[in-house]
């Protein structure tokens, strides 16, 4: 039940153990890097890398999701906030689990901590459900990478929480192999929590599609 630590982490965060430092910057805006060193962080360098939000985000762009290894955590849209302590305190990263019981979460946290270690600061990675991760958070680059790997990206129209976009009525998901829209849902559930299984009636291939949430 390792994910439970996530919730403890959230409650701790809410209890204020994160509070008191600089407000973390929301991610996803195209805000340019703060002035100063905009040099990308050298990997594996002996001296701590130059540290600002852009450098942290660039580093996170190299952390791949373990279950969808063609996607970085940034392209997957799970990076919620990055905060850098103005003194010499920690780099804090808040991530949004794709699914509540995602078994990859602990691996992702560890991979993020490893990748940010060269900055020479402590790294705190916590999970939060402050906003729900949804499939429309996957970036355009991420969608292209999924398609290239034979996984159909989620529909552009987000599924809403009320479930009005029913699986059977959703726009036909194009086949990632041949582009045909004559595809059918074989199984709502797939090899990981975030995937469904579909079948293409034209090229007669089964394929995986990202489950819209």
């Amino acid at each position, binding site marked *: 039940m390792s994910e439970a630590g996530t919730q403890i982490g959230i409650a701790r965060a809410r209890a204020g153990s994160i509070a008191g430092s600089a407000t973390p910057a929301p991610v996803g805006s195209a805000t340019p890097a703060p002035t100063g060193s905009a040099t990308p962080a050298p990997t594996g360098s002996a001296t701590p890398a130059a540290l600002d939000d852009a450098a942290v985000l660039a580093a996170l762009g190299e952390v791949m999701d373990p279950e969808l290894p063609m996607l970085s955590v940034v392209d997957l849209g799970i990076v919620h906030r990055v905060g850098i302590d103005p003194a010499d305190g920690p780099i804090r990263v808040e991530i949004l689990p794709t699914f509540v*019981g995602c078994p990859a979460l602990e691996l992702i946290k560890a991979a993020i901590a490893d990748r940010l270690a060269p900055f020479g600061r402590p790294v705190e990675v916590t999970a939060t459900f402050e906003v729900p991760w949804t499939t429309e958070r996957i970036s355009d680059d991420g969608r292209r990478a999924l398609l290239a790997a034979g996984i159909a990206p989620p529909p552009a129209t987000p599924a809403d929480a009320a479930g009005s976009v029913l699986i059977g009525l959703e726009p036909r998901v194009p086949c990632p192999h041949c582009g045909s829209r004559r595809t059918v849902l074989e199984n709502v559930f797939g090899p990981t*929590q975030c995937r469904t299984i579909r079948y293409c009636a034209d090229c007669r291939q089964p394929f995986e599609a990202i489950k819209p949430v």
Partner: protein
Amino acid sequence: MTPNVTAAPPATALAALLRSMADDEFVIGFSDSEWTGIAPLLEEDVAMSSLAQDELGHAAALYGLLATLTGSDPDTLAYDREPADYRHCRLLDHGRGDWAMTIARRFLYDSADAIRLEGLAGGSWAPLAELVGKLIREERYHRMHAEAWLERLARRSGEPRDRLLAALEALAPDAATVFTPLPDEPALIGAGILAAPMHELEARWCATIAPILAGSDLPMPPPARDPERGRLDHGDAFRWLWGEFTSVRRADPGATW
């Protein structure tokens, strides 16, 4: 570790709510996992395993919230209680049974859980309200799966329909036990955590499932047989399941992995 909310939540009532929800998700998740490898279709092997993974993840998150309130830890909450101390609803106490029993149980539980989650959405205690927002998005897939199978079994006369009717009949006295009144519901409602009392949620649930059951010419379940004890008196089927899901934990208490 007081969560950051406008007012302190009614801790005892909130803990009872979290425990009932976590135990429900844990028990049905573990029951579903029993199909891994032996489901009637390969696709259902995948589906039941994925469902089980979802539910156990939900249980872990809910136990995690409970642990912050009570100063415990999620594994202790999940595994270190005696069978009588679990507070899941008796709907989940009928053993795995056959495929029709599994589908009937999932249909009744998923539809009820959806109504309960609606009653918690947007609540005042942010850690739970935020989690609920996420759970709703995942649980709707469970509901679709259960409804599709319910219809599929109901509309095939002979063995499929007969088995489904037998399963619904066996579950009927406990069907509404998800809505067993919680200790101190007024405190939860007063604090803005729960939108309505359980009996009102039960009425909403009945209104939701009536047309679905009628559409397949299936009977509506009656009110719970013993509404006050709907989360107590777990029988032999649960004691067996408890023996299974605690076996590794009990084999080497305190082991770290």
